[in-house]
């Protein structure tokens, strides 16, 4: 079926089977390869993208169910929270293998959009669906706190 998608601020037309998960449309039709396949069942969070400001697992979202949802992937992140998170991730040298990190960053952006000063417990609740087999969790936590401090600073 033909679909019009709103991805990273642009309108994109694709022709795919309607039950195709958003993840594979992003990766194979639109060439947005930063969003990763990890489990195919919304257990690991490697495929996390933003729909509006809400993190969603693109591996389990049929593209036909997207409607007029506005999707942001790692390639299209913008805005204060996103830049603060990405800066903190780089400054904190968070990634090891790096495979889950697009999803981690998307999750952290959504958290900071909803909560300007998350506690450790807030971070646990928001981020426990984003698995990291290298267990970079110490640095993920530090980076989210650093991004929150950055956002509090002078604009």
């Amino acid at each position, binding site marked *: 079926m033909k679909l019009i998608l709103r991805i990273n601020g642009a309108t994109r037309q694709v022709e795919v089977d309607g039950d195709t998960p958003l993840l594979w449309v992003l990766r194979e039709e639109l060439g947005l390869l930063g969003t990763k396949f990890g489990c195919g*069942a919304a257990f690991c969070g490697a495929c996390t993208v933003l729909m509006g400001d809400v993190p969603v697992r693109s591996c389990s979202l049929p593209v036909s169910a997207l409607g007029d949802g506005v999707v942001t992937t790692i390639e299209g992140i913008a805005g204060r929270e996103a830049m603060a998170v990405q800066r903190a991730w780089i400054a904190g040298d968070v*990634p090891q293998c790096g*495979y889950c990190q697009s999803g981690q960053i998307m999750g952290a952006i959504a958290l900071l959009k909803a909560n300007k000063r998350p506690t450790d417990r807030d971070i646990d609740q928001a981020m*426990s669906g984003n698995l*990291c087999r290298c267990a970079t*969790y110490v640095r993920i936590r530090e980076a989210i706190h650093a991004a929150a401090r950055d956002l509090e600073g002078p604009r």
Partner: protein
Amino acid sequence: MTPALPRRLLFAGTAGLLVPLGGVPSRAQSTGVANPEITDWIVIAPDGEITLGLSQPEVGQGSYTVLPQILADELDADWQRVKVRFVTGRDAYKIAFKNEPAVQKEGASMSTTVLYARLRTPGAQAREVLIRAAAGHWKVTAGQCRADKGVVVGPQGQRLSYGALAGWAARLPLAASPPLKDPAQFALIGKPLARLDTVAKCTGAAVFGIDVVVPGMLYGAIQSAPSFTGSLTAIRNEAEILKLPGVRAVVRLPAVHVANEEPGSQHPGITQGPRHNAVCVVADRFWQAKRAADALDLVFDPGAGGDLSTAKIDGLLHTAMMADKAVTAVETGRPREILQERAASIVERRFTVPHVTHAPLEPVNATASWKDGTLEVWGPIQAVAACQDAIVASLGIKAEAIRLNVTFLGGSFGRKIVPDYVVQAVHASKAVGRPVKLIRTREQDLRHGIFRVNAGGRFRAVVDQRGYPLAVQARVVGQSLFGATRKSWLDQTPEGAWDESMVDGIYNQDYRLPNFLVETVDTPLPVPVYFMRSVGSTAAVFFWESFISELAHRAGIDQYDYRRELLSDNALARRVLDAVAEAAQWKARPGVVRGISYNCYVGRGGRFRTYVAQVVELAPAGDRFAVKRVFCAVDPGLVVNPNTLTAQIQGGIGFAMTTALLSRITFANGGAEQSNFLDYPLLAIDGMPEIVPIILPSDRPPQGFGEVVLAPLAPAIAQALLQASGRRIDSLPLPVEAFRRPA
């Protein structure tokens, strides 16, 4: 160690802006090749950009930064102008783990240990020849010149950049053994430099195997036999599958499985039986391939191992623990006699750990393009040589006709040394005559993956009047990794062979034991197994340290004091134990629920010794205990990059938390039962403890590190639970009920 190969001018590119040197036409200019290769490892562009070769795949461990850091320091390169590219195909890139032929691969925590010494020389050779080239141009002696961050500075302060000098330097002979830097002069080694791959991994730009795009490529998804020994007997609905949207082909895949290596080789043998055990659906898009593969109606014969089950495996473990006969690995003093004489006072404990699996977050995948008898492969490949050999063996193609491209690996932990998934992709591409990217779903990756062996332990001791061990018998049983995959690494004795990985951390343990017997019993199984981060030590050190905890507990002696006494002859061991106890305020803060553990991780073939001690603190979380904080003291020799080393401490302990608390593969009907992260969970951020790293200074060269912090974690947690509740724990994963707080 000096690379003996002739230097060549590689990487043909656009004509460079070479500065003419003394009127001598450089070979680069005369051939039109822009970027001269100075050594096997170093290419310098005219604009000064330096490309450093990386022979070890980046799986997350940091080699992409740490190994170039060593080269760049000796080279006196400008770190801001360094680029890294993966290189293959030369002897300089090969390493041997034991006394065997060298091959190119990553594993066993060997990369920095082995390459530290090897990379300094080519770095220094390049610096020396660049200085000599400048000196020749200025008509001064090399001794009057020096290198400074990518520039050679002459006696009058003249400056020539490496980029300007490279074309000329590439024509000069290399010094065989140029002087290396005094460590006091290191500009990069020892600095906590940021990883070179971080930006790409924070922007989505890093290319993992799964991200490879080849023009005209199709996608493959598979269904495999449920049983490890299974074979395909029928596809009942092939015609219907071929009619599904996007489907191009249904390809029967030959069984490729880990087997014993060829004699003299040192990577996994991949044998291919006459049977087929999987079917690949090739389609225009992955989702089409996956949906069609799910719809396949396949008939399998379960084969000889079709009755494999967890109950059967556990039965074998317990029988082996109690067997009369075992292979003696170590025997010092008179352990058998003393245990027999004092049989009434023997302390005995038995333990088990299950099979587990690597579960890297990037599922195994590969892209293959078979065309006119030549083959190009792209993928997350941890062992280049093993992969090439497996393709040669399975498809009969000549090694020279294969081109391998190694991408970033989205985790591996040993899994992506075994190239079964690459061979499957090649078969699919050959069948359809187009490039194919084969991706295993998580279910196909986990259930039909590669596993770490199980183990059982039976430990017996008699103690002296103070409670310290007088005689100890340590027996470890289970599926032997070396027996299954690497017979040449077994230690032969008149009684039979033993596998050092089964008793890693026991046969080579450091405590003072006057009478000591170490034994093993192999229980062969049809489970496909291979090396997994920290290999046998996760099981063996859990057993061993838990047994030491038992002896200290019975003696009524503080766990730290007990270990300290038994390590009184070993200064380096004591130093790391004391360091962790001091950081954790073991003496100053009594009453904390915690455990302490120690292990010296000895590299394969005795190549390195890394000392590790941990203190794990538990804290109440509702009606349970949670792992709150882990102090980890390490003596890893010289630390090339404290940033990446600290990351390995943090991440290694997190990885070990998963194994200690969550991981168990069970078997039924000849295969594994777990299929995704719902039934094979990984640690999430809410379970991650605070980590306090303590890195001790050392004059020793770099020792292995990627695996060393894992093993001491589980026994320290178990000891803390013993202290908190008196409960003795004899298995991994640690039982959930053991964390319940006493009422």
